[in-house]
């Protein structure tokens, strides 16, 4: 038979058993759409977490006081347990594998200025900080090392603060009062979005570290040191180098535990992706179940129609069809059905993903591989069970196929 006739026979046959075809296709449609959407939701969540981790800066290394191995703060370590500017300076002077280093001094308080007041956190940092966090300014300029040394009362506003205090005006050059101390706004940070813990990165004011230490935190210590490695593949080496410098700085002797903890992004993301990984596994199992259920549905429909189809095969054989004619016809039918079901299923999942992304907080991200997997799996089921009666019956004598019960 020519290809045209084969296709015609297959399409006719599909149209003749509309219900069977529809149910088969439906099994594939639901199977494919369920898998694609479920995995897309998992991947969407994963991507959100990755994005927020990446928003920390890709080469970021964070040094925090206290040891993570012995459960928090070491009792006898005393003042060595805190970081000082000396630690920061030592890193700055001695480390070779880092691009930038900045202390982070945390404070917080009431801000008055512009159109009202706002409660936010104030972070004392060095000029390297923007580069470490890969966080460009939207307008204005950042403070300099000289501002740090001089403990200048200048500050940079995060986008949330700017929107709340200066919704319509340009804040640059304006005065604000941070806990009653006047500061001059010299820059505004670009919008960064959510952090990995769900809070806004933009609800912050940056000021020179020494200004914050002396004027706002009342002698408080540096809460962490933020460092960026020169390149991503040097992160591990930079961590080792940092460790040596810190041990030296804290005069730890051989055998004594670290009184600080060094973490990089992968450590941070590990913790943060844990929840989204559980979500992904959960969703994938649900999707897997629906794929199996869809597959069983297809199987059922196909097997129920085996008797009818075997008789059809007997009729075709008895008027002169060859086994190969039958195989080609049934294979074509199964492929046409599975393919159209698969295409509709994928289209449906794109529609659902679009709706989720547009109208809900849930984000869904469809990876091409998932389409391939779902399509391939559902297609294989459809083709196998569509082809199964043909494979069995085309080898029979026509009379045996006609007699089949």
């Amino acid at each position, binding site marked *: 038979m020519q290809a045209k006739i084969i296709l015609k026979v297959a399409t006719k046959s599909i149209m003749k058993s509309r219900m069977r075809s529809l149910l088969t296709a439906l099994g594939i449609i639901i199977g494919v759409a369920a898998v694609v959407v479920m995995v897309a939701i998992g991947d969407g969540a994963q991507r959100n977490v990755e994005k927020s981790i990446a928003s920390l800066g890709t080469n970021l290394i964070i040094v925090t006081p206290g040891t993570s191995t012995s459960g928090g703060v070491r009792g006898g370590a005393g003042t060595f347990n805190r970081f000082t500017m000396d630690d920061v300076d030592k890193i700055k002077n001695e480390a070779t594998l880092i691009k930038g280093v900045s202390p982070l001094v945390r404070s917080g308080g009431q801000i008055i200025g512009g159109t009202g007041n706002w409660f936010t956190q104030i972070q004392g940092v060095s000029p390297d900080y923007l580069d470490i966090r890969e966080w460009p300014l939207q307008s204005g300029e950042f403070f300099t090392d000289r501002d740090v040394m001089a403990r200048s009362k200048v500050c940079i506003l995060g986008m949330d603060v700017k929107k709340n205090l200066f919704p319509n005006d340009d804040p640059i050059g304006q005065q604000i009062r941070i806990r009653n101390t006047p500061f001059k706004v010299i820059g505004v940070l670009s919008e960064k979005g959510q952090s990995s813990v769900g809070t806004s990165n933009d609800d912050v004011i940056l000021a020179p570290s020494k200004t914050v230490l002396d004027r706002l935190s009342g002698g408080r210590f540096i809460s962490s040191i933020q460092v960026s490695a020169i390149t991503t593949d040097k992160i591990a080496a930079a961590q080792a180098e940092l460790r040596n410098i810190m041990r030296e700085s804290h005069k730890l002797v051989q055998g004594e535990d670290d009184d600080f903890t060094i973490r990089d992004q992968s450590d941070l993301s590990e913790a943060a992706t844990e929840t989204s990984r559980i979500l992904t596994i959960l969703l994938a199992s649900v999707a897997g179940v629906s794929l199996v259920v869809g597959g069983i549905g297809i199987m059922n429909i196909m097997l129920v129609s085996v008797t009818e189809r075997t008789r059809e095969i007997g009729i075709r054989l*008895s008027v002169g069809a060859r086994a190969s004619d039958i195989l080609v016809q049934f294979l074509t039918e199964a492929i046409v059905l599975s393919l159209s079901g698969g295409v509709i299923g994928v289209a449906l999942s794109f529609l659902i993903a679009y709706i989720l992304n547009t109208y809900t907080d849930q984000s869904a991200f469809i990876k091409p591989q998932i389409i391939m997997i779902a399509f391939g799996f559902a297609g294989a089921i459809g083709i196998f069970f569509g082809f199964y009666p043909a494979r069995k019956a085309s080898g029979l004598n*026509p009379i045996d196929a006609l007699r089949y019960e």
Partner: protein
Amino acid sequence: MENTIIKTVNLTKTYQVGEIDVPALKAVNITIGKGEFVAIMGASGSGKSTLMNLIGCLDMPTSGDYFLDGVNTSKLTKNEYANIRNQKIGFVFQGFNLLPRTTALENVELPLMYDRLDKIKNPIKQAKQALDKVGLADRMHHIPSQLSGGQQQRVALARALVNEPAIILADEPTGNLDSKTSVEVFSLFQKLNNEGITIVMVTHERDFAAFAKRIIEMRDGKVIKDSPIKDRLDAEAELKKINEEAIIAE
């Protein structure tokens, strides 16, 4: 016989049901010439259908040879079997065996789809002519469930005819039909036979066998009697008689 179209030599068929051998055909030797009209008779289970299926190349013998048009079919491949079914034989079953949900025309076209030699140039026209021949030109687009038993069997006959076969084989073609419809079908057979087609049919009733030219009787898988018919009936005339009787009855 130069004229021979069907010749079986010790044709034997034994079915296997589990461990048990069921001998259905025991060394049958028959010869049928071109243009003959043979009725095969015999009790149920005597092997008539088995013989028909072998002659129709729908099944393969356990042993023995079957020569069709001088060709020994036991040497043929499955595909060559398919070609014979397609080109040389038209088979009519007791149970019609039409494709469901498929129009009469499409059912009749079916054999032409598998016509590898492209013997027939215009399949649709050919199928319509075949339907016309069995008097169903006006039922072309009906599906089997919209047709009576007699009409379905006539569609099946049109399907058997469409490839212009040398032989028509019919296994109890009227087994599911009432007697008047049966006679109508036999009148078609007689018409076709008059046009030169060889016909072999199985029938239960001696009355119907009289429409043929020769009777072969079987018992327990063997031919027990083979004789020409002396008082052959004309189905057309019988049909007239039946119609007249019906009118008188009213």
